[in-house]
């Protein structure tokens, strides 16, 4: 009887010490390759696959942003652009006209890892805002690497301040911290922005550089306004006009010029 009791006690001690060493396990990290986090999200199920989550990319005044459609960058859109992006895909963007750095370009990547569930008809009114500040663009031009994890704030932990619709609030983390894990503690991570000094080949962006040019839904310019009171154009028309109607195709987006025509 005594040997059994001693063996049980020994096993309990070993197990308790092993459990105490790892209180929380984070299987994902912002340091994973682009697309890994979103792909893992798709494996967990739910209504994520195939959903085009509207994303709004904002750049400083004077700068312009363009996205990739069929391995070609669209016409630069000043201030901001709104597009529906698939979860788990990686989208390459190009920022030009950086204040104080004429002629230089930055090519950030955007990975959407979660989605919103707005009332039907209001999807375009609530995009995920991704803001590129002048400071971060200059960091990228200096060779630094900027990782920004955009998360959905938990209302119970809401920051008790009036939100500036034109300026996204962010927190700086230490070098030893993982921004994805910090964002997960603060709310629900929605998208990851990665921005460095990587440039495409002189012959143009390769397929690898644009991550295969995944499908994209471009929204009209009137939906690129920052969050705030509803605009007169949107008042009275809850359903946004999309450039496409009908079933989705693998390549269903066209350059902005085509949309305007």
């Amino acid at each position, binding site marked *: 009887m005594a040997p059994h009791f001693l*063996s049980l006690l020994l096993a309990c001690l070993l197990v308790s010490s092993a459990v105490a060493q790892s209180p929380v396990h984070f299987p994902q990290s912002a340091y994973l390759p682009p697309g890994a986090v979103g792909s893992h999200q798709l494996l967990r199920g739910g209504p994520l696959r195939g*959903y085009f989550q509207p994303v709004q990319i904002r750049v400083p005044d004077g700068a312009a942003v363009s996205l990739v459609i069929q391995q070609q960058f669209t016409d630069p859109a000043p201030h901001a652009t709104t597009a529906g992006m698939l979860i788990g895909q990686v989208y390459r963007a190009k920022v030009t006209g950086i204040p104080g750095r004429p002629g230089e370009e930055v090519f950030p990547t955007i990975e959407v890892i979660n989605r919103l569930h707005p009332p039907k008809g209001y*999807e375009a009114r609530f995009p995920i805002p991704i803001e590129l500040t002048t400071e971060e663009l200059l960091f990228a031009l200096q060779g630094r690497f900027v990782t920004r994890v955009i998360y959905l704030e938990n209302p119970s932990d809401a920051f008790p301040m009036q939100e500036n619709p034109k300026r996204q609030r962010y927190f700086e983390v230490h070098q030893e911290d993982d921004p994805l894990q910090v964002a997960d503690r603060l709310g629900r991570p929605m998208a990851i922005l990665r921005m460095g000094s990587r440039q495409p080949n002189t012959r143009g962006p390769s397929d690898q550089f644009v991550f295969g040019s995944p499908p994209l839904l471009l929204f009209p310019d009137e939906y690129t306004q920052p969050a705030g009171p509803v605009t007169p154009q949107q008042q009275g028309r809850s359903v946004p006009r999309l450039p496409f109607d009908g079933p989705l195709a693998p390549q269903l987006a066209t350059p902005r010029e085509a949309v305007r025509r």
Partner: protein
Amino acid sequence: MIGMSCIRCLRGAAFWLALAVLTVSLCSCVAQNTNPNRFRADQPPSRPRPTSPFAPNRAMAPMPPRQRAAFAPQALAPMRAAAPRQTAAFAPPTALPSPAVARNVDVRPAVARPAAGPSVVAQVGHTEPLGGQPSDVALAGCVDCVKTHAYSQHAPPALPSSAWTGPAHVGDAPWKPDGLYGPWPRDEYICDGGDQPGEVRVRSDWSVDGLNLEDTIAHFDTKDGRTIVAPSNRVCIYAPRFAAVRKVSSMVQARETMHSAGVSAPLRLGQQTDSVLVESAMQQNQAMGEVGFRAPIAYRERQEGVLVHNNLAPIHFEQGFSPFEDLQFIRQGAFDNSQKARLADVTSAALAWTDKKGVQVVLDHTEAAIATTDVRPQVTYQYELGGKPRLRIGKIASRHQARPGDIIDFTLRFDNIGTQEIGNVTIIDNLTTRLEYVPDSAQCSLGAEFVASENAGESLTLRWEITEPLPIGVGGVIRFKCVVR
């Protein structure tokens, strides 16, 4: 013999260790799927998202007590004097936190149950059908509900239908896990109204305990000296807000400069000092006099300031009704079947009422029972009438969805639907953190004192104290505006 025992002990330890490792691995697998701290996905959860560890339970600061005379009008004063507060006889002491509270608090039942026999029907509010999805059974009794469903008002969806993948859903409602009530996901909505767990209790001095963020309640006094709490319905508005976590790293972050730790250079002895013995000693001088202490010549008294409340009189009530208030429920306090759908539309952003947090017009110990639970867009409560005091309070919002900076108009309608006059009616709305009260926007159709004080969520607690007793069948309307943070 000792060797055999050791071998037997090691075998047993190995067996238990293997069993424990298997158990821990299973637990870790489960923990990976249930731990709220780990990275989450939109996998259908079995229950609403738990509170983040960064969200401490904010205890509501004690409300300033009501600073006016007790409800004892001339016609009612003799009755009150003859029948002092005896609520304790109706409220079981075990359900109350303290005797001081137990004397004056009327406990509302937590779960409604069907009531039998003849009863008066009060139709209040709207609810989400059980199961969260409008089932065929639920819609069979309310055909119009399908036509006037909130989502049906927005004609073709914004995205192609093929973009809505995943589990099939009924109608135009977005996908939602089965078995969940109310709006989902919770972190995309801001809600206001109802009485969150930790029910509101009113002390004898009309101070309020248990008032959480988002709570909206009314309390009033009865002729027999009781104080009854009536929560409003819960209004949810779709208003997600984002923030970001940033990290900037570079290749030079690990650069480290090494310096020499020190130099070893021993010094030679420079000189030698001889120690000389003391040959004489000098006595210390005596004190020449005594130094006196001067007494203070002046005394300044510091008196602490007394508590001051900012009593703001409500501005003149605008009699005109806004378009979203053009309902019989708001105008006259009566329900019109033809307006149920519109009422459902303004009551909540998308999905208003939860089973626990819906309207609970429950007074005394008569449980309001849900008579029809699966018919949109209302819940019908039934309860016995027997000379009971009763106050109904409903809340609607002007918008279903809002972005930071948008202004939302809230309207509260309260009615005395009981069979006796009630007094000291107080309506309290504890705004959530994301809602900021617009100054000077409070209106009340009846004479009332308006008090605004800061709450734990760094927003405001709005309080209207109706000055006059509320006769039978009489009600009022309260309006105020909030900016979405």
